[in-house]
């Protein structure tokens, strides 16, 4: 009988032994080494053991009886130290065994990030029963806390298990969404929401700096300074194939042990199977392909012909209540068609990716019942053109329903606020409809919803449509873009009503038809989120047009212009000297702008951080000549110098500019302050124009002198400078909170009516609240973008990734 030695009693080698037992029970005399002090168990089911849903005994695959019946010589708890290929012996901790054939099935070991403190007691990986027991023990202490590093499959299963055992759990994930290898952003968002519902905190883009504690783990410190107390830290950041043994024995290895399609290594007497192998450049982390390998290996050993081939994989997460499925390649693209289905009410998201009439990928969340059916279509390469229209509804599809554009509104709870001006909820409107109000006019008359600023009109109409069904004829409204049926106004209202605080939340809850928007909707949604949730939402530079991302105006030749602020149009010799020096140093063209300041044109992108730093050194900050935000405040010389000046128009302009700069607005905002009605600062054609008069200040709004020339309309006559400032700030905030992205103030006022604006601002409490909200936002956004980007670390991004001009291209 031939002698077969197997290193590692894991899931893959266990399957090999089963095949041998079934087909040729007497072919080999078998010795089985395992470093773990036990035989083969279903490693996958450690998660239910962790959560308490199963016991270890229930997940044992091969017990003593099984090994006994096959006369397997078991050497459990004994590690193999080396392989001597010349003598054909395996050296274990307790002695040698010789072989005719050898199988290496050593699996993988968890990757541990070498952070300071990673070796403290209380830091565990998640791979075997010992790790699982350590976690169960930590969870036994009442009120104990766990930090899980890694938001992939394993990390989340660990987190869910620990949470079920009553621990406070925080998951740290370095990427922008959970399980990024298996899920797209939308599904990742729903998963996060579900985990949070069960009390697990999830921190995205969280990078760990240090694990701290005296004798054992006490807390985890993040790069941003956050400190998370922890009794146990689970590191689940990935696995590395265990190949040291094979490498030392001189077998060919890449990232893992290289095998051919017969699972043979570079030594014909030695085979390998499982996570420790590399086939055709691929390495493995799920069991399905390992079982294929095991079958091929068993047949190869017996001299039969078979070959291992790669196949499509699908993933599920074993966390009860988090229903997800992903398979194939689901990145979108040219030649590929996406079919997206979202049901915000049920938290369902499905996305199918079709290429050349075949399904190539599928991601699902919330309702994964049809996952295997789609997986079959992907694997078989079935032509789906005939079922294209109904594919998303699954195999059970019967009728002709299509995605419902009203789903987002239908999903709103009764207490969701529809009309912010009058505090009217969806439930109030539905009651009014049930009481007989059948059209917009009647709703306005009975509930006042949409009777004030009117921006919620679209939503009220949708509530009518949802409630009345076919009895209501929807007027056609202009959607934001092809990614949604909702208008800008609807999107703004729903972001507030449903407290949507991230882009994925908007895409999912409002039923976006594309995975992550387009160049039309993304900048708008980015603005709405940051205007409504300054403290929660993080501005996304990748959703901004180039000028706002690079904080400079791009020119037609790809260079940029640099324009420092000159507060209220005032400057001095020192600033002018710095500008002149910069013009020399960076070879800039100098132009005096129409906005009372100086433009340096023709700056190269890689020089931007340096010129900004020079400007900063001279005390100047960005002029934001490129933003949908505050541009200039033009002033005239006013009472300081002018024989007609009634008030300090220059001073007031400077105060306003210093208060308003840095704030993002739906479109640009320009101010002018003139010292008398002669109006030398051209204040009457600005978004806010102030004319100083003997008795005080006339505040006009809604002026413009671009594509449309508009004269301001009088908003309010203020008596003091303070009152003028308060009204101006409150007006800008009202505009920020309500206007559609890319509507200049005059366009917005034309929609909502100056009367509504005036009435709202005339309410003392409301005006004060607007000012307060503006100031909160400024606490986040009033920062000089130049200073933030002049540091060497930030400046790096303005340089090319690499310079290959000196590399030879053959």
């Amino acid at each position, binding site marked *: 009988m031939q002698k077969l030695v197997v290193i590692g009693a894991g899931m893959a080698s266990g399957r090999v032994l089963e095949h041998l037992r079934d087909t040729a029970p007497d072919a080999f005399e078998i010795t089985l080494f395992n470093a773990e002090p036990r035989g083969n168990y279903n490693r996958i089911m450690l998660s239910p053991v962790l959560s308490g849903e199963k016991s270890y005994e229930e997940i044992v695959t091969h017990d003593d009886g099984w090994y006994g019946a096959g006369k397997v010589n078991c050497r459990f708890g004994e590690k193999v130290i080396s392989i001597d290929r010349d003598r054909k012996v395996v050296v274990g901790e307790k002695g040698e065994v010789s072989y005719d054939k050898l199988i290496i099935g050593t699996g993988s070991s968890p990757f541990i990030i070498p952070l300071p403190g990673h070796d403290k007691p209380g830091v565990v990986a998640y791979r075997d029963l010992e790790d699982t027991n350590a976690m169960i023990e930590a969870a036994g202490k009442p009120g104990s806390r766990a930090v899980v590093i890694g938001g992939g499959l394993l990390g989340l299963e660990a987190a869910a298990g620990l949470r079920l055992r009553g621990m406070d759990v925080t998951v740290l994930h370095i990427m922008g969404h959970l399980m990024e290898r298996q899920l797209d952003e939308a599904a990742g968002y729903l998963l996060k929401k579900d985990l949070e519902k069960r009390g697990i905190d999830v921190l995205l883009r969280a990078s760990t700096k240090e694990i701290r504690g005296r004798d054992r783990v006490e807390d985890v410190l993040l790069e941003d300074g956050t400190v998370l107390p922890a009794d146990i830290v689970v590191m689940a950041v990935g696995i590395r194939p265990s190949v040291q043994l094979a490498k030392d024995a001189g077998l060919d290895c890449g990232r893992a042990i290289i095998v051919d399609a017969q699972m043979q290594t570079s030594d014909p007497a030695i085979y390998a199977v499982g996570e420790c192998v590399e086939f055709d450049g691929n390495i493995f982390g799920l069991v399905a392909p390992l079982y294929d390998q095991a079958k091929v290996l068993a047949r190869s050993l017996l001299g039969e012909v078979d070959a291992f081939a790669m196949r499509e994989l699908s993933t599920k997460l074993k966390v009860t209540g988090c229903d997800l499925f992903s398979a194939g390649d689901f990145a*979108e*693209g040219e030649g590929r068609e996406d079919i997206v289905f979202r049901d915000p009410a049920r938290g369902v998201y499905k996305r199918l990716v079709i290429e050349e009439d075949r399904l190539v990928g599928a991601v699902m969340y919330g309702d994964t019942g049809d996952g295997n059916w789609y997986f079959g279509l992907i694997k078989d390469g079935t032509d789906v053109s005939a079922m294209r229209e109904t594919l998303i509804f699954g195999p059970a599809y019967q009728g002709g329903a299509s995605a419902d554009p009203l789903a987002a509104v239908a999903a709103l709870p009764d207490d969701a606020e529809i009309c912010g001006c009058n505090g009217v909820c969806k439930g109030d409107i539905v009651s009014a409809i049930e009481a007989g109000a059948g059209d917009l006019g009647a709703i306005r008359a009975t509930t006042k919803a949409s009777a004030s600023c009117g921006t919620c009109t679209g939503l009220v109409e949708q509530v009518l449509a949802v409630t009345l069904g076919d009895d209501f004829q929807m007027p056609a409204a202009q959607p934001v873009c092809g990614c949604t049926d909702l208008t800008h106004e609807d999107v703004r209202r729903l972001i507030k009503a449903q407290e949507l605080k991230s882009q994925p939340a908007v895409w999912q809850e409002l039923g976006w038809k594309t995975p992550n928007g387009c*160049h039309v909707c993304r900048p708008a949604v980015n603005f709405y989120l940051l205007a409504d949730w300054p403290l929660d939402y993080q501005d996304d530079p990748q*959703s901004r047009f180039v000028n706002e991302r690079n904080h400079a105006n791009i020119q037609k030749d790809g260079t940029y212009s640099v324009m420092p602020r000159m507060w209220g149009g005032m400057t001095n010799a020192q600033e002018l000297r710095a500008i002149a020096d910069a013009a020399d140093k960076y070879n800039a063209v100098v132009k005096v702008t129409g906005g009372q300041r100086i433009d340096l044109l023709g700056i190269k992108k890689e020089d931007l951080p340096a010129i900004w730093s020079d400007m900063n050194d001279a005390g100047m900050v960005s002029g934001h000549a490129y933003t949908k935000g505050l541009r200039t405040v033009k002033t005239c010389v006013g009472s300081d110098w002018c024989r007609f000046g009634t008030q300090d128009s220059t001073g007031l302009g400077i105060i306003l500019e210093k208060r308003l700069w840095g704030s993002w607005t739906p479109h640009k905002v320009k101010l002018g302050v003139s010292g008398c009605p002669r109006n030398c600062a051209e204040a009457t054609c600005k978004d806010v124009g102030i004319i100083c008069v003997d008795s005080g200040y006339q505040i006009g709004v809604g002026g413009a002198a671009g594509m449309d020339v508009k004269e301001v309309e009088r908003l309010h006559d203020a008596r003091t400078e303070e009152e003028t400032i308060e009204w101006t700030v409150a007006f800008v905030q009202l505009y920020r909170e309500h206007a559609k992205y890319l509507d200049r103030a005059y366009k917005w006022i034309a929609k909502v009516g100056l009367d509504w604006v005036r009435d709202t601002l005339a309410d003392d409490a409301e005006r004060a609240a607007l000012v307060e909200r503006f100031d909160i936002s400024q606490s986040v956004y009033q920062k000089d973008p130049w200073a933030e980007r002049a540091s060497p670390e930030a400046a790096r991004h303005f340089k090319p990734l690499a310079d290959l001009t000196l*590399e030879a291209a053959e």
Partner: protein
Amino acid sequence: MNWIDVGHIDDIPLRGAQIVKTSIGCVAVFRTDEQEVFATSNSCPHKGGPLSEGIVHGRKVTCPLHNWVFSLETGVAQGADAGQIATYPVRLDGGRVLLDLDEIGKRSAA
């Protein structure tokens, strides 16, 4: 094949781009997803806009100057606009981004 390591994927912002200077001009390297990169010419066939500065959505980029939209996979302009940008072989090895310099040389010569 002449795969050259040009940097780490994390040096490219998610849904953003970076440029690599080569002897035939700038190549834009786009990152569309946590783990997906594309390489194209950086210059828009319309009026030379720097595509690396455009908004990246799905596997497409919108030119920053006048909003032409290009597929990053085929390089073909979308919608009513007609035109195409060169696309180049790029791949990921671990987190490293590799560009095939030979191919870049060839395609520009053609």
